[in-house]
């Protein structure tokens, strides 16, 4: 991850590149209440995570403090602050999913594949994260594999889903 010292050393050209790209999202959500979250969604969609240097330029573009952006970024487990694997796996640990056995899903992924919650596998293929909540409590327990929601997931159905993923070269 980039450190503050890296950022200070960052060239004006690099900053300008980020600025131009951010401006597109800022314009898209201009004047919309709560646009910070929408812009962060767009950035994560494009980059796979929200890089520090992007947050810094966004703070300037929206004229808000960097701390405010990080308060939002860290409040929602949806946002990644580190680069993610090719395939993003989210297991919901909200109240309903917790009661319906989300812990079993996570245990299975840990033992079967050696995944670690909050981390990406060394081959950069899979990232496992807990989320609260995916807003689909009626389907608990829920997991999300990339953009697909796995309803009433079982350890078996989740494993099956992951094994079916194509192993793209990275």
């Amino acid at each position, binding site marked *: 991850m980039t450190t*503050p010292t890296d950022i200070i050393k960052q060239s004006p050209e690099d900053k300008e590149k980020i600025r131009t790209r951010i401006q597109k999202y800022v314009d898209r959500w201009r004047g919309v209440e709560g646009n910070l979250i929408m812009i962060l969604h767009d950035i994560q969609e494009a980059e796979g995570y929200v890089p520090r240097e992007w947050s810094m330029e966004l703070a*300037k573009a929206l004229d808000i*403090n*960097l*701390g405010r952006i*990080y*308060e939002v970024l860290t*409040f929602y487990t949806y946002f990644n602050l580190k680069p993610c694997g090719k395939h993003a796996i989210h297991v919901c640990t909200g109240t309903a999913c917790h009661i319906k056995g989300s812990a079993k899903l996570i245990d299975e992924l840990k033992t079967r594949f050696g995944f670690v919650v909050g981390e990406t596998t060394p081959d950069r293929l899979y990232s496992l994260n807990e989320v609260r909540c995916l807003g689909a409590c009626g389907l608990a327990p829920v997991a999300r594999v990339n953009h697909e929601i796995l309803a009433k997931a079982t350890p078996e159905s989740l494993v099956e889903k992951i094994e079916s993923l194509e192993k793209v070269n990275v």
Partner: protein
Amino acid sequence: MKTIHAKINGIAVEVPAGTTILEAAKKAQVRIPTLCKHPDLKPTAACGLCIVKLKGNPRTFRACTTPIDEGMEVITHDDELVSTRKTVLELILSNHPADCQTCGRNGSCELQKLSADFAMREERIPRHVCDLPKDASTGSIIIDYAKCIKCGRCVQVCQEVQNVWALSFLERGIDTRMAPSGDISLAESPCVRCGQCSAHCPTGAIVENDDTALVWKALHDPNKFCTVQIAPAVRVAIGEEFGLEPGTNLTRKIYAVLRRMGFKAVFDTNFSADLTIMEESAEFVHRFANNGVLPLITTCCPSWVDFMEKYHTDLIPNFSTAKSPQQMMGVMTKTYYAQKQGLDPAKIYQVSIMPCTAKKFELERDTNMQASGYPDVDLSITTREFARMIKQSGIDFLRLDDEEADSILGEYTGAGTIFGATGGVMEAALRTAYYKITGENMPKEAIDIQSVRGLKGVREAEINVDGTKVRVAVAHGLANVEYVMDKVRKARDNGEPLPYHFIEVMACPGGCIGGGGQPYGVTDDIREKRIAGLYQDDRDCKLRFSHENPEVKQAYAEFLGEPLSEKAHHLLHTHYVERPMYQR
């Protein structure tokens, strides 16, 4: 304003509309406990201890955020409320380490006190304490995340009162932490080390870096000649640590206790405050008379200097190059005093007692802080650390006979002592600038420059100096600085007349008397009492103009030449640079 009539525990109260139940209860001599509401800050309803009941309503309400209404009947204490509060405390304690004896807030912790008041005797809920490492990166302030109770005071003071944004409210639920944003250390963050977070923290989660052991070590080292200086604001606050009223002036007892502790020479930062005024007012008069860069901005406050070097770099030419009194005293001790006494400056160990956590940082700001060829000041401790040292020493502080400071760096005037209050540097500088411009002292009735005094965030005034109007501004609390600086920028960019000629900035609300290293529990009421103590000291001084300080005059005659001389420049002035900064 509309008056509200209500009852608290059956006692009738009358308060202005908008008053919260928490405030109104005080009128009925009722204290509702709270761990998150601080008189300086807005209520956040974070801790849940201030719950109360309203007659005819089945719910409970948080007293800190509920305004009292006409006819309301509030119940603040009954079996159920007290028992719920106890449960809330148990829950807070279940996430808090049980290491009170080795904690920086042992004896001054609000959580510890409430636990004692509520007779917490059992641990019913198993403890779960977070294992985040401490952050000691700044050398001034230490954050211990495990001790945080998530009240949010530090974040509010850092973001809203100081506009620094070193701390943010990150994560949520059990993982919530008040920390620099983006997994960086406090030293890498925008932190200016003002220590207001530590002054507002109810527990030991943020404390000053305690250097008292280093002072003792130096004092017991036979090869060191230990000297010490005490800042203006310390004398009117240290008494609070010994049960005295805020504002009690203990200057002469402090001299006595320092000598008993083993310091070989006891100096007063008030002397070097007078010296600062000589340099700064000369700088002002020079710029004023020669169309120099104006407004001149004061630089005694290291947090403000740090803030400016990060965020107001375009105004660097406006900054006074005069060093702070702490640094001037250091360099004068290791040059002038050492020569006069025939001492080897390498053996002198200079300790400063400051109301400030940022002064620890100022010592190592840059090589100008070693103008004597040695570290000008070796160690800086806060008022709180000094109080601890007195208690460790076994000296019955309050019963000591009064003593005087050492000569040649000990004599001070009223102008030096008011440095500790917001507006004081401005007032002291104006007194001497007036003399330098007109050749005579201000008339007696004008010496107290009331227009620059008080606790209003920004004070603007026009001072008549022999027919010339000098426009000045005083700001304290860094969030108030922006207004003044923007006004200067706007005038400069539009080619308009200067809004001010002279600006004083102090980072901490109230100035140094409200510094981040002062005794805990500060409120505006206490700030006013400490300030009153300093103004009283000023009035009690025979001399009230820095340029009349006999020891300052002697130092110029024997050693420095005159203000702004080459020697003065080398020893007493510094310069500022833009600091590349991770973003606010």
